[in-house]
């Protein structure tokens, strides 16, 4: 029934999967570290994609949720000897609760107000982390133990990479299912036209809160993983630049499309590293590349299908090719 094309495509996904598994085995420590950073950026970008991509809410303070997850794991594991697995669970819950709390008053407003509130919220969390005693002040928390199952410790970079990989796979599956569900359709409806959605009986505030809370949860999860990978965390990691970079990953790759967002996250991490040999010029070159991308591909490098259909895709869509994307 299906064309060879689809088989070809799943073959390529499997190949990509194998490459991701093989990365720590065939490369050195440095590239494993870059790949792990890319993994947790994928997790962050996927989480933010629920908020920005699916529900169309502009969030400029996403690193706040990331910080909550990080600090929950950091504080609980170092001060109270709590196991990492409990702390990552609690980190996700705290982030979700915080997301809902900040969402209840602000999500009633239109998107631009939300952007301003979230921007402020992100700064508040960073300043609290910077000035409180329990967060270790400006130099943060150190000596965060690696996660373990029984006597098996995820000590090396390689093991942590695989741990993150598992979380990313789970996140992709969950978010892909969500995006194609009734909830996902409601989000997209709200994104396209909130008034029309409300008129059709979609509870706008409820679905927006759901998107915001779920997005925050993935931010918290990524934060906990970040804390154990780094073993030491500090407020610098949770500034506005971090929020902007995560948003950039989503926008660069293609808002609303899982594979696009993943591509964006990988590029945001990989490009500055690949340009390390240009030393001081790399940030500048990175900026130029981004501007060029936005000029020539305003919908991202790999935009979601709907936009492509309307905008510039001359290729007629055939049978199986439709079903793969989110």
């Amino acid at each position: 029934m299906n064309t060879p094309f689809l088989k070809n495509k799943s073959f390529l996904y499997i190949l990509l999967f194998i490459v991701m598994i093989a990365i720590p085995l065939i490369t050195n420590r440095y590239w494993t570290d870059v790949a792990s950073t890319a993994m947790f950026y994928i997790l962050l970008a996927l989480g933010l994609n629920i908020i920005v991509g699916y529900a169309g809410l502009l969030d400029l303070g996403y690193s706040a949720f990331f910080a909550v997850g990080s600090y929950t794991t950091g504080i609980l594991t170092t001060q109270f000897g709590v196991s990492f697995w409990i702390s990552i669970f609690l980190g996700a819950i705290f982030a979700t609760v915080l997301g809902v709390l900040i969402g209840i008053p602000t999500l009633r407003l239109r998107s631009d107000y939300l952007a301003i509130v979230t921007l402020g919220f992100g700064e508040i969390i960073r300043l609290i982390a910077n000035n409180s005693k329990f967060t270790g002040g400006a130099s943060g928390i150190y000596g965060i133990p690696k996660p373990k199952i029984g006597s098996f410790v995820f000590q090396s970079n390689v093991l942590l990479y695989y741990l993150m990989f598992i979380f990313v796979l789970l996140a992709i599956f969950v978010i892909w299912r969500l995006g194609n569900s009734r909830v996902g359709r409601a989000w997209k409806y709200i994104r396209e036209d909130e008034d029309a959605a409300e008129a059709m009986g979609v509870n706008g505030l409820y679905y927006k809160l759901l998107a915001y809370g779920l997005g925050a949860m993935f931010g918290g999860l990524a934060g906990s993983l970040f804390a154990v990978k780094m073993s030491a965390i500090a407020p610098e990691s949770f500034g506005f630049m971090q929020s902007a970079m995560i948003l950039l990953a989503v926008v660069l790759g293609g808002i609303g499309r899982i594979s696009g967002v993943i591509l964006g996250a990988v590029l945001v991490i990989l490009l500055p590293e690949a340009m390390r040999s240009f030393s001081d010029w790399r940030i500048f070159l990175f900026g130029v590349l981004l501007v060029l991308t936005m000029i020539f591909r305003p919908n991202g490098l790999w935009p979601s299908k709907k936009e492509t259909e309307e905008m510039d895709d001359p290729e007629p869509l055939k049978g199986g090719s439709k079903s793969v994307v989110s």
Partner: protein
Amino acid sequence: MKAHSKIASILLVLSFLFLTACGSGNGNEIVIGVISPTTGQSAKMGQDMNNAIQMAVDEINGKGGVNNKKIRLVFADDACDPQASTTAANKLVSENVSAVIGGYCSSAVLPASGVFNSAGIPMVVTAANSEKIPENNYKNIFLLNSTASAQAQTATNYMISNLKGKKIAILNDNTAYSVDLAERTRDAIQKAGGQVVLYESVDPNASDFNSVLTKVKSKTPDATYWTGYYAAGGLLIKQFKQQGVSGSFGVADGSVDQTLIKIAGENNAEGVFATMSPLPQFIPGAKNWSKDYETKFKQAPGPYSALSYDGMRLIIHALEQAKSDDPNAITGAIAKTKGFATFAGPVEFKANGTLTKSNFIMIGVKNGQFEMVK
């Protein structure tokens, strides 16, 4: 076919990147990693450190190198960011460096030191000085700059021994750094047999400190030590003199700035003492070195240039002692360093990697300028 070719091209780019990433030095050179911020807000500090390190390496390579090998530096930018710092650290480890020098921001050094510790590569930290770095008890991380407790000890020694003080007042500005230093100084004074007659926090944004200074005056202290920053410090000195409070006034490194003297007024600031990191401009022996630095780089050395220069010399010394460029041998040699001469005095390390003797120097205001106290 779109997605198909795209995934294929991504794979191609990825594999290309990984292939080009490999490769390392040959046997005729010793590779030393430098980790410092050369982008971001602290870029100037990082460049000042890198210059001084390059200067030390150029000198030794000009003499034919060490152990008959030339030293090659590999620079990695940590941007003063914890995340970038671990990546930079892993990059240096992948390049098979024998030792690492640098480290400006404590929050970036903390995660990086974990990477170097697990890889068994020695690191000489030449600027960052958070107490948290030695608390990890990593055996291969050495701090060339003294920590807050060392500053507290230096201040205590000066007030108790040099000034023959017994009753001491301590003021802080309620910021984390200031409170931490004030607490450590209080403990050190009590340990040394002194008496802390007053311990107060003041609001650094206030312009009138007379109420707290009246309190200080009533306690007739032999010395008053301010652990906050220069803006409030200058006003405190001015009002301290106007009220005629007994004893001397001292400040910590956060207040060492020409602005302090400007705000306080030259006459009021005269005789104020200060604890400070060993900046080249305060050390008589570093004058010639500063001149050489300026000719080479067309700019004055930065606050941590002298320490970075000494740090690189320390690594070269360790390479000579160990007669090897094996990281473990270098770690052992640095740990065994005895009385290695630096601008700030002889260097030796405790088991936790901090200096046995504080490198904080005592400076004082003389004719409207900070000068070394002798």
